[in-house]
């Protein structure tokens, strides 16, 4: 249940489709997290590179984790340019229990931010500028550094 889209996500289409897919499956709670690109610092939008093989591994490991709690995860992310006030990222948890669902959406989104192999760029005057200062180094970063 991981989907990548070129450009902005169609929030209504995606969240409606997920809702319809789960509504009759006796989960008690559906909790989507919808990220919307903010107009700030003079950007026109954001742009993304995604490394699919590791993203898939990361997502599948989370899906297994969710399954052990009777829950299920969905995620959609953009590749390429996403203009201000449109969406680049949607995650959702479906869970029989409210508390499990609320905990999972928090932990899943936070781990996504820290570990999903996706690179973000600001779109400024038609150029892609790597959002270095908002990015987080992955586990083991600096392994090949000469200072290491």
């Amino acid at each position, binding site marked *: 249940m991981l989907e990548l889209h070129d450009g902005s996500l169609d929030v209504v289409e995606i969240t409606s489709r997920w809702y319809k897919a789960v509504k009759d499956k006796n989960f008690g709670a559906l909790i989507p997290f919808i990220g919307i690109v903010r107009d700030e610092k003079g950007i026109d939008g954001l742009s993304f590179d995604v490394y699919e093989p*590791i993203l898939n591994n990361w997502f599948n490991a989370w899906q297994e984790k969710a399954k052990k709690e009777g829950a299920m995860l969905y995620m959609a992310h953009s590749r390429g340019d996403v203009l201000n006030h449109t969406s680049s990222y949607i995650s959702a948890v479906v869970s029989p229990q409210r508390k499990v669902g609320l905990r999972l959406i928090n932990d899943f989104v936070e781990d996504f931010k820290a570990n999903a192999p996706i*690179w973000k760029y600001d779109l400024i005057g038609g150029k892609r500028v790597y959002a270095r200062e908002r990015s987080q180094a*992955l586990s*083991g970063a600096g*392994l090949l550094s*000469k200072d290491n």
Partner: protein
Amino acid sequence: MARIEFLGPIGKEPEDIDIKNLKELKELFAGDKKLEEWLDICAVAINDTLVNEIDVKIQPNDKISLLPPVCGG
């Protein structure tokens, strides 16, 4: 030959290299001023699994990926 990929913002074409372990890769890259700033902050994956040790063996046909700091969402 192992293949090395420079992901995301590094913006460098993949290269095929003849090394037996990551330590040799580190030595190979030493002195590449342009790459050095990336090496300080990049994680390393072999065949799409992140690794934490420099003496990992490299097999022919292994895929080595350099992953800069991430920011999805």
